[in-house]
């Protein structure tokens, strides 16, 4: 008996072991979240402190990542900017996800005219190159992060709606939903307790990869002067600030880019890890 249970335990433990991409993701994302949250403790300098005696100093013991064209410490600015870029990943993904999931849920479950209408809306929005439409909307609304989030909510929901709808279509006719229906549960309960939780898996995986896209597009807007507004430290803004001086001081541009890549990698690993865990669950 004891032997058998030992064997089972080992098997269970192997099944529960995290994929290595998940461990990497937790390490990278955890590090960024801690750095961003504790920026005032970690950063050696005030991110906006101008030091004209120390302009464009190359990386050294006092300034690990060097200083920029007005002598601000690049390392401190990269750390503080993580707050803005992490916030972008959340505020740029959650509203489109909520809107899209709601529309996809209703549209898939009830079908009919509403479904047709939203699917045409999907076709039309999907015809526009994503970045072009976001850029145009932000351009018309005016620069700034708030308008970036508004444009994402206007454009980004369609993919979530499409994903949730596709899941709901298969779940709608499944046995457990039919059972819930024949037991007389209210439609609202069926939708929220039975359909939505089961439709959410692929959506979460997509949301994580979407976060990379949102972060990069947000940094691109910052680079073009249409996202986060200077002097607020944001990686795209910092790269834009450093571009005219890249010949003399490559480090002003270089380190914010590396920061964006590491955060992107953390998110990509998270997406990969979640997908693997899901595959395992399905296999079991």
């Amino acid at each position, binding site marked *: 008996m004891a032997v058998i249970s030992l064997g089972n335990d080992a098997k269970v433990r192997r099944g529960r072991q995290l994929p290595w991409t998940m461990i990497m993701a937790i390490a990278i994302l955890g590090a960024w979240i801690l750095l961003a949250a504790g920026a005032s403790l970690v950063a050696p300098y005030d991110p906006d402190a101008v030091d004209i005696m120390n302009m464009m100093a190359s990386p050294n013991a006092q300034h690990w990542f060097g200083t920029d064209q007005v002598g601000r410490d690049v390392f401190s600015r990269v750390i503080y900017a993580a707050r803005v870029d992490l916030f972008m990943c959340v505020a740029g993904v959650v509203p489109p996800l909520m809107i899209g999931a709601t529309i996809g849920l209703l549209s898939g479950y009830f079908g009919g005219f509403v479904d047709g209408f939203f699917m045409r*809306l999907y076709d039309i929005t999907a015809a526009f190159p994503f970045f072009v439409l976001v850029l*145009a909307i932000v351009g018309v*609304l*005016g620069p700034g992060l708030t308008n970036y989030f508004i444009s994402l909510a206007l454009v980004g929901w369609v993919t979530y709606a499409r994903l949730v709808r596709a899941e709901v279509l298969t779940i709608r006719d499944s046995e457990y939903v039919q059972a819930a229906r024949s037991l007389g549960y209210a439609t609202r309960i069926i939708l929220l307790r039975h359909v939505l939780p089961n439709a959410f898996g692929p959506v979460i995986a997509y949301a994580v990869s979407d976060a990379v896209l949102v972060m990069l597009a947000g940094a691109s807007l910052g680079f073009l002067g249409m996202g986060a507004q200077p002097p607020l430290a944001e*990686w795209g803004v910092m790269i834009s600030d450093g571009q005219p001086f890249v010949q003399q001081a490559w480090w002003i541009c270089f380190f914010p880019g590396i920061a964006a890549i590491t955060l*992107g990698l953390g998110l*990509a690993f998270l997406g990969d890890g979640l997908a693997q865990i899901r595959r395992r669950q399905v296999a079991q």
Partner: protein
Amino acid sequence: MGHLQAILQRLLQLIPVLLGITIVAFLLLHLAPGDPARLLAGDRASAETIAAIRHQYGLDLPLWRQFLTYMGNLLQGDIGQSLRFQRPVVELIGQFMWPTLFLVSYVVVLSVPPTLILAITSARKPGGLADQIIRLIGVAGLTIPVFWLGIMMSRFFGVALGWFPVSGYGEGFLDHLHHLFLPALSTAIWFIPVLTQSLRAALIDKATADFATAAKAQGASQRDIFWSTVLPNAVLPTLNLLGVLVAFIIGGTIIVEMVYAVPGLGTLMIKSLLGRDYYVVQGLTLVFAVATVLITLAVDVLTAIIDPRVKL
């Protein structure tokens, strides 16, 4: 049902999508809070200027009348007038589109050979070491900010090593190739992983297909099966995806053009946005969307002609 009929039906289905695209482009200018006339005139314009602009562009009419005028203009090939250049947007697009077309084709041409090599290596042993490494490189490639890569590459290959010019478009075909190499490479580094993932999936899918098993049963060698059975069948789904991906390339080249000062549609779009030349922005957004739709259509029709089993 013949091909021609299927294509005609597909064209009919396009009409509502195209109509929707024009509505979105039209509403773009009305999205801003307040008065579109003020938006067009700028913050410092006097009340008279705003009134003049409102009247000149028919912005004092009801929305539906404005839309009808807009549609009428579109059908006559007039997609707006640039306030800054004082020229029709169509003319501007005609002038700026060549560098962009060149760049997009360049990206595709640069991306195909590495994609083939990477996808074939990956799919030969799914889950193997090579596959894992290629997937990781792909994931990393997707997380690089394209504009940052552009700046860094122009700093090191352009200025420090002096191999490539770092801005402009040049004169003549070879000069274009030379000038646009770094912009195309910056975009390709980000595009290759996407394309590789798709071809890899298709290769693995077709390698286990019935016709591959049948070929094996008939005694064909692994090599023969791969080159004459699996690969040709796997190219088609990837080709299909290419239509969708061109939209992504367009998005990517916009910002790369800006970094390398390529006088293309992306640069035009961003300069117009920053210069508040909104009719150009509107026109470009419309043209980008219509181009995406038409490319997707062309790819679909092409696949149907290549493979008669495909239904349009």
